[in-house]
């Protein structure tokens, strides 16, 4: 918990991303649509490359302008959230690969792990991928340099902006 350069992170865009991941993955399970799982993985992959939440475009182009979702800007590190999306992408890619190869139990277990972790983040405010990021930072793993915001348990959502 050292002094750090936190950035303004809009948690509404992260939440939108999580809600779409949860919703589409659950629909994929109910309707047994492995293509939908692959699509969600693809969007997350593109988002990871562009360093933005995959489904964030829906927030930026529809939800925010229409006022259906309000910005929730907090002082936070964006890197752990990007890492978290990469982890989700890897899990969903593995899941959809398993589904295409006929191993449906493994495929759906991996998909449900992503649903569970995204739900914990969206509804519980706890980002497991971010916690793993901060653990790796503590172990001085190259590329993982950020510390959690002061007074916040690694992975927990910062609760209010410093500028409020």
């Amino acid at each position: 918990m050292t002094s750090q350069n936190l950035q303004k992170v809009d948690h509404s865009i992260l939440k939108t991303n999580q809600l779409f991941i949860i919703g589409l993955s659950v629909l994929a399970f109910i309707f047994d649509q492995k293509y939908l799982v692959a699509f969600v993985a693809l969007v997350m992959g593109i988002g990871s490359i562009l360093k933005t939440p995959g489904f964030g475009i829906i927030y930026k182009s529809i939800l925010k302008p229409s006022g259906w979702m309000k910005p929730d800007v907090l002082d936070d590190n964006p890197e752990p959230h990007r890492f978290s999306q990469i982890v989700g992408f890897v899990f969903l890619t593995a899941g959809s690969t398993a589904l295409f190869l006929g191993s449906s139990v493994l495929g759906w277990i991996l998909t449900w792990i992503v649903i569970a972790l995204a739900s914990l983040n969206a509804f519980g405010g706890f980002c497991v991928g971010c916690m793993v990021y901060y653990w790796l930072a503590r172990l001085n793993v190259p590329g993982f340099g950020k510390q959690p915001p002061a007074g916040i348990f690694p992975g927990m959502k910062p609760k209010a902006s410093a500028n409020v």
Partner: protein
Amino acid sequence: MSTEILLRLVLAIVIVGFGIFAYWCVNQRLLLKAQNNALSLFSKLPDKPAIVYFTTPDCVPCKTIQRPALNKLSNLMGDKLEVVEIDATQRPDLAKQWGVMSVPTTFLLDARGNARFVNNGVARMEKLMEQLQTL
């Protein structure tokens, strides 16, 4: 085909329900922990509602939002409310005992020392007031 979809829907509901139940259990456990620790925090129960407030010196929202809200509430309720402030850096043992993972965290105890609400993060005065009214 539709039977299979129905079965999958039921399974999805069961899994989601299990998740919600697990989350509820975690919150209940946190309240139970707080309840067990309330007696050790007060030498004698204050016989009035109490707010146990965990903070740290470098917690900015604690200074800008949480403390002013608690001060306002204290002024408003006078001696009908006890506010106990705990610096989690000075008392990490207490923060651990109470299961505090981030600051600010506020626990609301009723007059008998039962933990009734926990707010992980900033709780504004209106919310605290609403919670106090149900105690």
